[in-house]
């Protein structure tokens, strides 16, 4: 299942500068493992020690947030586009 993964700029130091990589995976969990095997350290940036997605990381499959699908068990099929998106927030107070 070859899917395209869009890498946000802060993680590209781990992907050799690539903004998009292609990975074979059948679900989001497998995708993260495959990414980490090729780009060591990525999983730690995306998941906590228990393996859950970090609160500041959102993963979208074809514009759908996996939190509203099956989270890391969300299935993938060839041609899917996966976007890793940071949560952006702040303010004066």
């Amino acid at each position, binding site marked *: 299942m070859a899917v395209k993964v869009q890498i946000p700029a*802060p993680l590209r130091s781990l992907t050799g500068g690539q903004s998009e990589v292609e990975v074979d995976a059948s679900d989001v969990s497998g995708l993260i493992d495959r990414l980490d095997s090729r780009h060591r350290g990525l999983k730690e940036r995306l998941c906590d020690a228990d393996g859950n997605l970090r609160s500041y990381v959102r993963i979208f499959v074809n514009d759908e947030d996996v939190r509203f699908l099956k989270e890391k068990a969300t299935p993938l099929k060839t041609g899917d586009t996966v976007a890793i998106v940071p*949560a952006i927030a*702040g*303010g004066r107070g």
Partner: protein
Amino acid sequence: MRIPRALMDVILAHARSGYPYEVCGVLLGRNGAGDRRVDRVVPVVNREQDSPQVRYEIAPEDLVRVQRDGRDEGREILGYYHSHPDHPARPSETDRRIAAEGLSDGVVHVVVGVEGGKRAAPSAWVFRDRAAAFEPEPLDIE
């Protein structure tokens, strides 16, 4: 970071019109050889529900849409902007703490201080993971 005057005017007008609430948006451009030049500004809705006078949040759904549209145009996200109503144009401790928790290394943040909804002044910063802090970024308004 370089940005055309017309696009900076869009940011400042957004900050003034949104007063007394914080406003936010996305900076897009082409990041060639470390030369950051913004060539598109996309204002987005501040999704902070509880305290929009002092906090902002960009919804991931909005961000993924902006990112996709940008890629279709050959652009990428260079950073973000938000306003500080009646507060200095520099990152707050809240800004720093949330950036340090997240995926922010090398990302530009333009912060706009807005006094009384009228006078708006921008500054630019880059977050660095190694320092867990924002560093000043030269802001070249062309």
